[in-house]
């Protein structure tokens, strides 16, 4: 009786066993990569908006402070999306016929808000408060990236829990002096870690509080 399996079957069998073993890892590796990629997280993906608002123009070009529009960022959990009146403060006189501002003019005429698409959307099971971060030395660009370079706004970070914890575990790596919070030009000094330690004291962040920053219930309330 002839052999059913040829000599090559041995190699194929071995390759299948090894390939199968690593294939499982490769598969989950691939899933993980897709999960972390901008395809899922929307990181770096510019968001289409009804009015193509450019932070680049308004921040870098005109030098507006973040707080001119995001008025509640220092005292509320929510940084605030400006009402149409804020846009119209200037655009009632500047670029009054621009077609791209038509939704703004309509919004003012009909007293209906412009619909903006959220760029940074945290899951609802996360408690987040802008004011405490701003008051305790975390600058806008640490989380939102170089907003002054965004013609259309995109998400600068994945907003994964790992990313939040990266700072919550060692805030001294990111703390800035009070007058640099809203600066888009601040860069990490070479002795950031030492400065960060000093800033922790200046902002009155206690040892106990530093430990609490890692508690689940700090953000999942």
């Amino acid at each position: 009786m002839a052999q059913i399996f040829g000599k090559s079957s041995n190699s194929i069998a071995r390759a299948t066993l090894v390939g199968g073993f690593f294939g499982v890892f490769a598969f989950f590796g691939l899933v993980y990569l897709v999960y972390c990629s901008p395809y899922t997280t929307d990181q770096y993906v510019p968001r289409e908006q009804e009015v193509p608002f450019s932070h680049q123009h308004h921040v870098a070009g005109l030098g507006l402070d973040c707080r001119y529009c995001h008025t509640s960022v220092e005292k509320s959990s929510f940084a605030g999306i400006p009402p149409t009146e804020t846009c119209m403060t200037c655009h009632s006189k500047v670029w009054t016929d621009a077609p791209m501002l038509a939704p703004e003019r309509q919004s003012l005429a009909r007293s209906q808000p412009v619909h903006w698409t959220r760029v940074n959307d945290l899951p609802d099971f996360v408690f987040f408060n802008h004011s405490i971060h701003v008051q305790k030395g975390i600058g806008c660009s640490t989380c939102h990236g170089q907003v002054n370079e965004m013609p259309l706004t995109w998400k600068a970070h994945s907003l994964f829990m790992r990313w939040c914890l990266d700072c919550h575990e060692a805030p001294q790596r990111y703390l800035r002096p009070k007058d640099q919070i809203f600066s888009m030009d601040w860069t990490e000094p070479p002795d950031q870690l030492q400065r960060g330690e000093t800033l922790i004291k200046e902002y009155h962040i206690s040892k106990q509080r530093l430990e609490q920053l890692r508690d689940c219930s700090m953000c999942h309330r």
Partner: protein
Amino acid sequence: MSRKSEIRNPKSEVRSTDISGFGFRHSGFRRRATYRLVCYLALLAAAAGCRRDMFHQPISKPLETSDFFQDNHMASRPLVPQTVARGHLNEDSVFYTGMIGTNLVETLPFPITREVLERGRERFDIYCSPCHGRTGEGNGMIVQRGFPPPPSYHIERLRTAPVGHLFDVPTRGYGVMYSYAQRVETADRWAIAAYIRVLQKSRNAKLANVPEGQRAQLEETN
């Protein structure tokens, strides 16, 4: 046959036709395995649904759209007529309007301290300087881009205007300038008014205004 009954009774479906080509008819074991697989997949899909439900829970966040209210389709509610929101009674008319009757007040409703002036400078630089410029000349960046120029703070009319006027303008708006009452808190508008006075003084300070002991120091730095 509707989709629903298909799911409820897979057996009858399988017996009648076998279009899948996997030989369902021949093996009860395979049929059960497939059924189980379908169940697992359904569970997995449901789990993905869970994730979405947890991410977007039925709670309202500021400024979100909501179909709960039919009038404005927003989670934020307009003020009910004839009511006052908590903390907005604004009883102190001097503090909130800068006026006594119809006359603008001549003094700030609270003492001017260094903190007040520094707060005023910070708020002025954020909200006023885009048009008025950091020194109050009226040549800010927005003006350079075509906005009608406001008057300089250093003209006689504004230097002699009561401080209440410097508070009243950002509160109610003036000419082409919109009101800033919704954007800048009342106390901050007073701090800005105080800081504008500082800007005005800085252009008209005389050596006689400096306390005698510090005059020598000033000349040194020059």
